[in-house]
């Protein structure tokens, strides 16, 4: 008698794929759909964890595309403080699919509503990225000009990139009731003033996230038909939830929804892939060993393991792909430069600021 579960590769069985191995010996967790080569121009965006991926790729000489580089003479620590060299453009963390969609649509011409212009004590903050300048902007005009520069950088990245790495982070969000525009963070936390009538909470559901991601991907591909998309889900738990649930269950609700969306997108599009950094960090097989004592932050060893899987699985699937160190192919160029600073290991996470409100 025969059936489909006979003769599968070892990774298909829990016993041989997981149970028989030390967790640090697991392999083949990812079957990449396309090679990431030394010649690719890699765009990174998303939540905190995407910073690790960009940094690791850059460190290995891959062509990480910095479309909004730090201006000349800026010290590395200042560049980091002002959010240069963190993502491919100076958006700060993009936590939700809706905000990614908003950024892309606005960069390519959609109207920017005034509700995104925040003022706090005479300083101006961008509701799309309120923590981008530590003390806000001096004038509204300056803030808008800076945002326009970011839009230009997004256009450049979309037009010139070849792999768009996006890390899905959160489902919970705050939006403007009148315009339905979503904010990067809840007004009043980092900047701005919270208005209960104007600012509403929303916990995105699967269908909505899928719709937003499809719209974002469609826009990217319309501008750059060659762009491939590599999705990850941030393994970093929520700092706080406004859902009314316990933050632990709210985290599961959020991450599982995002994970499902990522899977569905990867299954639906041949140019979209999902890399399982989320599983590598969160799965019980690893017993939480990659989390810091606060059970939230991911330690550098965890990032190393994640990226080890990334490159190992790429090597296994595409052993002949052009690598950064192969005969000058894909050699590290200006695209790969990232802010070299003493805090280079620190991931910028505006959400972390919410911790200040934790009792």
């Amino acid at each position, binding site marked *: 008698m025969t059936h489909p579960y006979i003769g599968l590769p070892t990774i298909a069985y829990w016993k041989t794929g997981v149970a028989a191995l030390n967790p640090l010996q697991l392999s083949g967790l990812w079957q990449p759909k396309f090679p990431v080569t030394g010649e690719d121009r890699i765009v990174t965006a998303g939540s905190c964890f995407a910073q690790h991926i960009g940094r690791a790729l850059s460190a290995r000489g891959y062509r990480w595309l910095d479309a909004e580089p730090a*201006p000349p003479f800026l010290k590395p620590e200042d560049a980091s403080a002002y959010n240069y060299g963190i993502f491919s453009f100076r958006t700060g963390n993009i936590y939700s699919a809706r905000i990614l969609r908003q950024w892309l649509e606005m960069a390519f011409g959609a109207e920017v509503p005034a509700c995104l212009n925040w003022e706090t004590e005479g300083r101006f903050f961008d509701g799309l990225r309120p923590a981008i300048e530590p003390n806000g902007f001096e004038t509204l005009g300056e803030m808008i000009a800076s945002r326009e520069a970011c839009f230009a950088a997004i256009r450049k990245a979309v037009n010139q990139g070849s792999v768009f790495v996006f890390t899905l982070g959160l489902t919970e969000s705050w939006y403007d009731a009148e315009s339905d525009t979503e904010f990067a963070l809840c007004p009043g936390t980092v900047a701005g003033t919270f208005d209960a009538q104007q600012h509403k909470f929303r916990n995105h559901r699967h269908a909505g996230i899928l719709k937003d991601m499809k719209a974002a991907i469609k826009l990217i591909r319309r501008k750059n038909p060659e762009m491939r998309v590599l999705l990850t889900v941030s393994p970093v738990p929520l700092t706080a939830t406004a859902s009314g649930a316990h933050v632990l269950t709210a985290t599961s609700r959020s991450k599982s929804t995002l994970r499902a969306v990522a899977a569905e997108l990867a299954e639906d599009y041949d140019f979209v892939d999902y890399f399982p950094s989320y599983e590598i960090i969160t799965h019980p097989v690893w017993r939480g060993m990659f989390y810091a004592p606060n059970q939230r932050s991911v330690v550098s060893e965890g990032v190393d393991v994640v990226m080890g899987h990334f490159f190992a699985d790429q090597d296994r699937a595409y052993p002949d792909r052009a690598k950064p160190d192969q005969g000058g192919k894909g050699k590290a160029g200006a695209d790969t430069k990232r802010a070299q600073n003493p805090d280079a290991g620190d991931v910028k996470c505006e959400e972390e600021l919410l911790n200040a409100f934790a009792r």
Partner: protein
Amino acid sequence: MLSRVEAQSPPTKLCIFGDSHLSAASRALKEAPVLGDLAYEFWGADGPSFRDLTLVDGRITPGKIAKDVVATVNGQGRETLGPTDFDAFLFYGARLRMSEFMPPMLDLLARPFAHVSAAVARKQVRSFLGKTRSYRFAQHFAAQNPKASVVFTPTSLLTADILPRVANGYRYAKKAQEPHRAILRDLLDEAGREDGITFLHQPERTIVKGMFTDPAYGIAGAQEDKDAVHKAPAYARLILETYAKQVCLPVTQV
């Protein structure tokens, strides 16, 4: 534009401190006594010797390499230079290179859709100034002798048409206009004010092609020697005349 130094009275004793650019200043003063009755001394060293100048016990002190050069430049036997030795200091050139600072900054300012916030721009300026030793000397002098006039005239932009490749990579700086340069001067002035230092900037009329000095102000033989850095005494004279007008004359005459 040089802002008025808030001195109680015009200085009586000036030290012109610098590097090889002192040569043009010296020649200019020999050609015309633009500083009037103001007593002045030169103090400094050129080229590699300049790097041998350090602060020792609060005084600019030459090492073995620079000692003889300083003696030659000064000619007055002043072996070291301290903040209270003079009531006015003009840091002349002294390796604070606008040819290094201006082009990339102008390129960013003149680039479409590029933007740098005021806060970031201040950080950039601070970083640029802070890495230049002579500026740190000037900061020290201003801090140690608040009554002194401390003026800094940075090294001018490179002379145009001598090193054509210099402009490569500065597509937008080449098209920069006076308002772009004014933004950078304002930023330098702001930083200088915080440090008690007044900037004396390159006159706008000597600037061509966005980021260069008019060849009319280049040093003699600049083209043959491929020397885009040094300037003619005519340029130094412009600087010194401005300095004299702004600093040397009594307050009532300004």
